[in-house]
């Protein structure tokens, strides 16, 4: 049994470091940028064209949060080649699996993070807006200098949870032919007829990845909320 494990382990870890983690990291960065734009659109109070933008942003969040991620992956990878747009895409939209995966994961995690970021933006007390306006800042400066920095600190724990969730969800990419860590474990299991051992092993590696990430999350949280510590060492609420 040790021989099987020592043979499989390096292949799994390599697939994890080469595909699982990069796909998760890239998708999360894109998703987070998207989330910020969507959240800012949704909390804006501008009228006119912004009414439509707000509606689109709300529709996007609703759509991606109320359909399964696996189905979204299938639509983007297997479905879009059949979407024929005369002029733009006369032969359908064919994406390679990695592009399709990253697009779908970004859109999906972006929708969840948008709600997190929106709630965090709204949780910054009204007095912070007023104090910033009173020193003569315009809205975009208030957001950039005062509101967003505080909101991101508030949003850090739920955003970290979303990221850890995304790392595990990348295993779904196996279904659109991406050879990430879980797909590799399936291939090895098919070859050595040890599904219980192989799937347990891959589960363990996911657990190790996620544990390391949650340590990182703790460390980041402590670092980013240091400003809330009183001299007595207790945390202010």
């Amino acid at each position: 049994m040790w021989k099987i494990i020592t043979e499989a382990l390096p292949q799994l870890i390599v697939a994890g470091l080469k595909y699982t983690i990069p796909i998760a990291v890239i998708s999360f960065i894109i998703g987070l940028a998207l989330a910020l734009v969507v959240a800012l659109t949704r909390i804006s109070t501008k009228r006119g064209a912004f009414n439509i933008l707000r509606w689109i942003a709300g529709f996007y969040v609703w759509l991606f949060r109320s359909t399964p991620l696996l189905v979204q992956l299938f639509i983007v990878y297997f479905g879009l080649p059949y979407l024929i747009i005369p002029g733009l895409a006369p032969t359908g939209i064919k994406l390679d699996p990695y592009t399709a995966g990253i697009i779908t994961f970004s859109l999906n995690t972006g929708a969840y993070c948008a709600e997190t970021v929106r709630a965090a933006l709204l949780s910054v007390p009204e007095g912070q807006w007023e104090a910033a306006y009173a020193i003569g800042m315009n809205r975009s400066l208030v957001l950039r200098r005062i509101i967003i920095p505080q909101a991101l600190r508030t949003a850090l724990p739920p955003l970290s949870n979303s990221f850890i969730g995304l790392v595990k969800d990348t295993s779904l990419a196996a279904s659109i032919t991406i050879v990430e860590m879980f797909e590799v474990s399936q291939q090895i299991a098919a070859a050595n007829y040890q599904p219980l051992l192989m799937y347990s092993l891959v589960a363990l590696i996911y657990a190790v990845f996620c544990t390391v990430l949650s340590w990182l999350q703790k460390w980041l949280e402590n670092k980013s909320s240091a400003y809330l510590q009183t001299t007595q060492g207790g945390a202010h609420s």
Partner: protein
Amino acid sequence: MISVENLTKSFGDNVVLDHISTAFPAEETTVILGPSGSGKSTFLRSLNLLERPESGVLHLEDLTIDYAQPISSKTTLAARQVTEMVFQSFNLFPHLTVLKNIIEGPVHVLKTPKADAEKEARELLQQVGLADKADSYPAQLSGGQAQRVAIARSLAMHPRYILLDEPTSALDPELELEVLKVLLKIHDENQSMIIVTHNMSFAKQVANKILFLEHGKMRYDGPTAGFFNSDDARIQAFLASMTFTL
């Protein structure tokens, strides 16, 4: 000088400011008094456009704002350069150190070079007795210290007027005293101020002029001595309610 003509503001059918007209002389301290809910905060906030009355005219130095007309964001920003606001709940930026709280406006709004802004911020901290707190975060300060930082933050913008809305109402008496001392010092340096307060002895000492609001109406607009010696029954009743007598 700041002056207003016929400021009127309602929340629903609750008339909070009812045709208020007055002037705030420069280099003097005007104190606004009145029972809770009489419209003092709404009035003060109308002077820096945090509140928008439905009608009335606001003169801020040579800037004129007609509240009945749409106000451009450019005008709003220009108007807010004339005044600075000190809030009852301090509203320091919790993610920035004391020093960064003070230089935030000068650096990012006035575009003062950072080194100059920091130098002045340290002088201001000295002035409010907090030179050693430059690198502390707001959560590490007492209420009295936080409010003194907020005062330094407002002074750093070189406003013509500082507006203070019950600056000591959230403080214990001994902390209140350290803030009032700082305000007295600023007053003695001829900084123009408009203060809402419930502290009558402070009002008596610092005010060059008293405004008394009741149900959104201006009941008194005149010199300090005249207010405290008024024979108006309403004013006497208000003063009696603010003084603890056995």
